């Protein structure tokens, strides 16, 4: 059509009309008994007098000719795209099954990508929903160069932070905040748990957020009289139904009357963007609200509980802020050497503070995000190759149409454009479907977050970036799966195609080679995903069998906080004692005791002094987990004592200070095996403790962690106003939990009891990462497998159709039906085995990389590999068997006649 330069719409009409005519003719000839080849030549023969047609068309459309070649033809181009799109729409409507399948396949692929990108966008790219986040820097302490350990950051004391706010030259404003802390809120009959974050008066103005309701507090209220609180939006919605009356409401928090003065904007969880507080309270309230945890925090320069956030002055860069902070750190170290010696300050991008103070987390999350994006990208590629395969099959069927179009003068470029329009249309429809599926899937997944902290957890957010991403992926997808089929479909020599005798066989072969290669790749990728999912699954299974060094089968733990209910030290001690006594008599309970540490949640402290140990330098301190435990702890928790004795009622407040260490610590510092009787001194204590026993080393901060030293101290000799209750049950711990919680509440009216879990749940929580891994990888692995089997099925069905005549001949010559099924299966499974062979080294490599995240299984676990292969082969067999069965059931005579 190109030389005629008629409008694209008119050209498309003419082509459609002529193509229809030829097809009608062809059909009629075939139904009249003519064989396909002759009918085709006969119909196409009508095109002999093409020049006449061209001339006629030229006469017909003189007005629509483009004036000159050099001039702009943008109008024609736009019109052309529009008419191409309409034409493509019609073509797809004519093949609703193909269109639906293609859109669904692409939709699944794009959906997976949209979901993962939304997560990445929420967590990594744009985690802090505040204006001008670029100018915000996280200010934290760090060890000086001589003792620096990687990127470790340290919290700052309130006083240091205040001096920095006054002394710096780079920040327009500087604020401090703490991590979320558990507080007890009296609402209704029983006390409730909330998370509160202390934030200085300049916190909200530094971040530049605006209240969703009410107001924020400022510097004027940041003192111990400022009994005001700002509520998290989600908490406001969930606990107060988003009512305006919540603002101005009084809450009794840890015994202090606080007034809710405002609500933070929706989606704002503070700088710890992943897990936020329910309320923010002025830092000046620290000692009134949390006298035990935060005692002296406002006056003691050694008590570092805050992190800083600063907004850079206009034109100031982060490097300048860093230099200024280092100078200030030097001044602080000179002025207050006892706490600031050897310390410096860092100014990091605020992004790095979003995951809290935990080290290496941002890079881990970025890495996980990259892996997930790669995985979902591969799933999308599988979807693309499936649709490309289908389009190749259609291209073969549409060879005649292409030949006719080219015969009447359509340029190849023009046809490729037409075909690409079609695939881009499929891509866009798939994108729309995928957007819905991705967002829906993500929201479904989010519903499974623990309800008790639903308001505190980050929500995946939909923004322009996600929409743009999906649109770009949809467009790219259409081009990716459309280009190869379009080029192939239009690579027809007109004359040859019109004459070609063996058109299905000749082109079919090379088409199949391409399709098979794509398919083998899909199988390989599905295999890798399934094998890794299998690894994680086996790892989780094994993890429950790992001995963490304490018993889990009959364990239940409860977190309590009598201090926050306003209990005095004496009353708290009485409460601990009464709970122990009540539970000793309770049915189904073997024993009960108290400990300061939640299992697998302990944190090591440094600064221990060990008798007989020579310090190599001033900063060379001993680090160990410290756990304050009550009488009966070792029996209840199931921690075996290897030497010496347990704590007894005799180890009271007035008795000689004692401690129990674990085997690791004993071996590290007293390799001669004479730890019992030696002395140690804990950080913050003035006297020594005598070691009276050695306990078995357990896992303290993570399951299957490398052994770390631990020191146990008797509760009677070290007071804590918040403790964890350990209960050992006779049978299933879940059965006694309600009764135990009731006993605890009766013993301590107003005391917050929360976080109740069985030992198995404790281990399960510790396996969070692995479970996430299994969930995501199995989902994507099964998605990939499903797509690959659909692709396999499509190819096999197409092949069976193509070889109908051949199989008819074979059957006529006496081949058994079973032989045919075997032949088809063999053909399909050959592709599958190639995929497996390709996937095996990849799976082994990925397994090796993940080895550190696995419990009790190697990265090259044969069972996982074999399991993945078995699942894959089974599903693939099914996908081949269906077309094979159809082939074996056909009537050989009919097949021969048709062929």
């Amino acid at each position, binding site marked *: 059509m190109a030389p005629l330069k008629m409008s694209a719409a008119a050209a498309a009409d003419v082509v459609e*009309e002529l193509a229809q005519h030829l097809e009608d003719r062809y059909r009629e000839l075939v139904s009249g008994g003519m064989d396909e080849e002759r009918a085709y030549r006969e119909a196409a023969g009508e095109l002999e007098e093409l020049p006449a047609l061209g001339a006629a*068309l030229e006469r017909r459309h003189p007005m629509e000719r483009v004036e000159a070649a050099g001039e702009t033809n943008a109008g024609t181009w736009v019109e052309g795209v529009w008419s191409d799109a309409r034409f493509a729409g019609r073509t797809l409507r004519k093949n609703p099954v193909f269109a639906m399948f293609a859109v669904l396949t692409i939709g699944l692929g794009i959906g997976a990508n949209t979901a993962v990108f939304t997560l990445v966008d929420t967590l990594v790219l744009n985690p802090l929903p505040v204006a001008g986040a670029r100018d915000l820097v996280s200010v934290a302490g760090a060890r000086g160069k001589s003792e620096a350990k990687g990127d470790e950051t340290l919290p700052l004391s309130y006083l240091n932070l205040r001096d920095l706010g006054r002394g710096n030259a780079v920040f327009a404003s500087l604020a401090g905040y703490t991590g979320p802390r558990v507080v007890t809120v009296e609402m209704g009959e029983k006390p409730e748990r909330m998370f509160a974050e202390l934030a200085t008066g300049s916190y909200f103005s530094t971040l530049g957020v605006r209240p969703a309701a009410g107001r924020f507090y400022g510097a004027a209220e940041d003192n111990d009289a400022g009994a005001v609180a700002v509520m998290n939006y989600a908490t406001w919605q969930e606990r107060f139904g988003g009512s305006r009356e919540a603002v101005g409401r009084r809450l009794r928090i840890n015994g202090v009357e606080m007034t809710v003065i405002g609500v933070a904007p929706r989606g704002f969880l503070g700088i710890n963007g992943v897990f936020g507080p329910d309320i923010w309270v002025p830092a000046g309230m620290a000692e009134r609200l949390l006298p035990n945890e935060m005692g002296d925090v406002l006056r003691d320069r050694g008590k570092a509980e805050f992190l800083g956030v600063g907004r850079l002055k206009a034109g100031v860069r982060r490097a300048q802020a860093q230099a200024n902070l280092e100078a200030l750190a030097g001044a602080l170290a000179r002025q207050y050497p006892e706490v600031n010696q050897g310390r410096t300050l860092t100014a990091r991008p605020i992004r790095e503070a979003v995951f809290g103070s935990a080290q290496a987390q941002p890079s881990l999350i970025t890495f996980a995000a990259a892996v997930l994006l790669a995985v979902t990208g591969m799933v999308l590629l599988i979807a693309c190759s499936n649709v490309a395969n289908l389009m190749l099959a259609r291209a073969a069927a549409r060879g005649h149409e292409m030949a006719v179009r080219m015969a009447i003068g359509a340029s190849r470029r023009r046809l490729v454009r037409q075909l690409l329009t079609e695939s881009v249309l499929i891509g866009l429809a798939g994108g729309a479907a995928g957007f819905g599926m991705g967002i829906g899937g993500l929201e479904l997944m989010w519903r499974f977050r623990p309800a008790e902290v639903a308001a505190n957890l980050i929500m995946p957010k939909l923004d322009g970036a996600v929409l743009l991403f999906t649109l770009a992926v949809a467009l790219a997808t259409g081009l990716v799966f459309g280009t190869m089929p379009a080029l192939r479909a239009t690579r027809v020599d007109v004359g040859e195609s019109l004459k070609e005798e063996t058109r299905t066989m000749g082109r079919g072969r090379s088409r199949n080679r391409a399709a098979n290669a794509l398919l083998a790749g899909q199988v390989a990728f599905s295999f890798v995903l399934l094998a890794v999912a299998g690894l994680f699954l086996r790892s989780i299974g094994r993890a429950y069998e790992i001995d963490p060094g304490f018993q889990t089968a009959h364990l239940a733990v409860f977190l309590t906080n009598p201090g926050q209910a306003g209990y005095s030290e004496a009353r708290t001690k009485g409460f601990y004692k009464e709970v122990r006594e009540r539970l000793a008599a309770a049915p189904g309970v073997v024993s009960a005791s108290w400990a300061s540490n939640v299992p697998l949640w302990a944190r090591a402290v440094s600064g221990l002094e060990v008798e007989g140990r020579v310090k190599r330098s001033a900063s060379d301190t001993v680090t160990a987990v410290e756990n304050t435990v009550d009488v009966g702890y070792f029996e209840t928790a199931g921690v075996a004592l290897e030497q010496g004795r347990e704590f007894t009622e005799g180890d009271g407040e007035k008795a000689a200070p004692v401690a129990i260490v674990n085997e690791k610590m004993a071996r590290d510092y007293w390799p001669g095996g004479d730890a019992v009787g030696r002395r140690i001194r804990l950080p913050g204590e003035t006297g020594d403790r005598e070691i009276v026993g050695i306990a078995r080393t357990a896992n303290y901060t993570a399951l299957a962690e490398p052994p770390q030293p631990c020191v146990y101290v008797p509760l009677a000799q070290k007071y804590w106003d918040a403790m964890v209750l350990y209960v050992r049950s006779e049978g299933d711990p879940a059965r006694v939990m309600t009764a135990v919680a009731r006993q605890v509440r009766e013993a301590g009216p107003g005391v917050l009891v929360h976080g109740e879990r069985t030992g198995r749940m404790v281990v399960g929580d510790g396996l969070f990462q692995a479970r996430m891994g299994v969930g995501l990888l199995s989902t994507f692995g099964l998605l990939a497998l499903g797509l690959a089997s659909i692709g396999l099925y499509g190819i096999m069905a197409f092949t069976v159709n193509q070889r109908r005549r051949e199989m008819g001949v074979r059957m006529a010559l006496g081949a058994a039906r079973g032989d045919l099924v075997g032949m088809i299966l063999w053909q399909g499974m050959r592709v599958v085995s190639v995929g497996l062979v390709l996937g095996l080294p990849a799976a082994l490599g990925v397994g090796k990389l993940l080895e550190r995240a696995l419990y009790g299984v190697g990265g090259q676990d044969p069972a996982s590999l074999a399991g993945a292969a078995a699942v894959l082969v089974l599903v693939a067999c099914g996908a081949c068997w269906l077309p094979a069965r159809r082939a074996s059931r056909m009537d050989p005579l009919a097949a021969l006649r048709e062929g």
Partner: protein
Amino acid sequence: MTAAAEQEWKKGSAELLVLSLLEDQARHGYDISKLIQLRSGGALSFHVTSLYPLLYRLEERGWVNGRWVEKAEQRRRRYYSLTAEGRRALRAQRESWKGFVAAMGRVMGVENA
């Protein structure tokens, strides 16, 4: 009929043939070519390359009107119908054709050609 004669015939009478087939009802291109073949007992046939340019020419002249019709479960087709002007043209051509045939008959001595 020889090939040369067929060419001549077509030039003179193709328009009349198509117009008369559209007199009663709208038809699509393939239908028209089929009917010509059928009614002529296979003696007359049109190729795509001459039928469609003819249709387009008639359309250009305003004698026929082509439009796409979509039917459920079928591909859409372009149906051609006579315009009022086309009807007038058909009447005029038919009259002159009859006159021509009658004149031919008289000259050649054949009755009721």
